[in-house]
């Protein structure tokens, strides 16, 4: 029994569409992401991310074959993506993205019928915390944490009745700013830390991808796709 789409609440279709749009975006900027990781890391970040999102797309297509009524809560696409990233994606970044998706899924699953900005804020905050517990990076270490923490803060700062699209827009802007701020940093965590000063002048690809993730909820934010 399809429910009326309410712009304040996330639905199965809206979270699925978000992820599919992120998959397309990632694909289109793959060469740029690869170039960034080549200059500051081992060059596999672009492949890791697009490979992972291609897997997510396949998993969502399988789900979409089911009748709409069976597709369930807006948490399902997020949980599906989390499983793919946690299980099948390589590199340091793959499972870390999985942790973020897992926390988003869990927050949404807690209130599936009325999930919105509040749950996105809670999930992103929990995701950032999990990633920091596991990866032990602080803001300023030139990792995706530099984008994720400001994004979580931006989401938390939104009024609870902000439309998710609006809230995620603000998160994307904050994340992009955080990602750009990594440009002049020396890496202190992750593989890029071994390349020392080589990484200076290059923004962190993982942080850029976080910004892209938040930006992908809304097609209009494609401006962000013009990565430096």
């Amino acid at each position, binding site marked *: 029994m399809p429910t009326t789409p309410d712009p304040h609440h996330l639905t199965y279709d809206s979270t699925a569409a978000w992820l599919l749009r992120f998959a397309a975006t990632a694909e289109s900027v793959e060469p740029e992401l690869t170039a960034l990781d080549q200059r500051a890391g081992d060059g596999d970040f672009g492949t890791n991310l697009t490979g992972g999102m291609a897997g997510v797309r396949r998993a969502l297509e399988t789900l979409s074959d089911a009748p709409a009524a069976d597709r369930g809560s807006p948490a399902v696409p997020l949980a599906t993506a989390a499983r793919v990233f946690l299980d099948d994606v390589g590199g340091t970044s793959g499972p870390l993205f999985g942790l973020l998706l897992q926390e988003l899924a869990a927050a949404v699953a807690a209130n599936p019928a009325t999930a919105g900005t509040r749950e996105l804020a809670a999930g992103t905050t929990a995701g950032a915390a*999990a990633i920091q517990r596991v990866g032990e990076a602080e803001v300023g270490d030139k990792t995706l944490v530099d984008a994720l923490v400001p994004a979580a803060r931006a989401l938390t700062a939104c009024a609870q009745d902000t439309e998710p699209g609006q809230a995620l827009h603000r998160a994307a802007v904050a994340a992009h700013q955080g990602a750009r701020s990594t440009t002049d940093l020396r890496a202190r965590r992750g593989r890029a830390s071994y390349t020392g000063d080589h990484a200076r002048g290059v923004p962190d690809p993982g942080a850029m991808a976080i910004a892209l993730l938040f930006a992908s909820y809304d097609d209009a934010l494609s401006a962000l796709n013009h990565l430096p």
Partner: protein
Amino acid sequence: MSASFNRSLSHLVIKELTTMPRYFADSPESIVPDALAGFAAAHADLVSHHPDHGYLRARGGSPERRVGLVSGGGSGHEPLHAGFVGAGMLDAACPGRIFASPHNRQIFEASRAVAGPDGVLHIVKNYTGDRINFGIAAERLAHEHIPCARVLVDDDLATDSEDIAVGRRGTGATLIVEKILGAAADEGRGLDELTALGAEVTRRARSLAVASAAHTAPGSGSPAFELPDGVLEFGVGIHGERADGTTPAVPLTRLVTAMTERLLAALPDGSRRVLALVNGLGATTSLELYGIHHAFTKALEGSGVTLDRSLTGTFVSALDMRGFSLSLLATDDELLRLWDAPARTPAWPR
């Protein structure tokens, strides 16, 4: 050898040369999976292998256990960890590729499979990759409401420095932690108690290693690094990495005495009783290891500490590196009791 003997080899034509001179394998990719298949078949009475999820699990074990013990890490350190899966030690081990951390999925699945009513304890050697992957598995377990805690083993004295932000590496003492926690888990202790015990064992254990020749890199078939004659790498880890320091190749007794002094100085103040582990890094001969045992025993006697227990052999290796590590654990009656408890695993020597 007779002509007929050589003739009989003529069907081994040169067409299909291996890409890995020196390593006995079909291909670089097959080393670990084939070894796991062989290991599981060879020890089918003690362990089972889950090829989909890539972990080894103990068959049987104590019904008292309330907490599953899971360890793992890069392959190339055999018999660690797989050889210590079994009754009285680990419930599961997760092997990664050679010198590479296992995937969080292996750890997650293994942990789910062996978690007891009180959850699961991860025994993790202190390496960034291992910390991250065990950490991710722990996050996933939390989402499934499976209690999970960690013991981080960081015994390597060579990396004990304020300059090293990531802390001391985990090396030989991992075996000691696995044995003692295994025995304690068999007594039905809970997760918090085991975690505290693991931290205490780690606090009381230090190791130091030296190498006289690098391991053979599986890909190239040549030594991972060249050491000039008469020089030892002092303070190596277990990944064939070079140490920051070298030392002249002095006679063994002097070398071991110097290492012993450093180890003793690093134990908690007032430690007067020890357990000593002499561990080969791979290609060190048994003759040398027992000669080292002899020198270690003499050095400890000379320092006036009591040698409560010892163990000598190849337990935590770095492929075929020529070298050895010495570990000391500051003991007490309770730790000795746990050390002495029976265990039945593919590589536990008692």
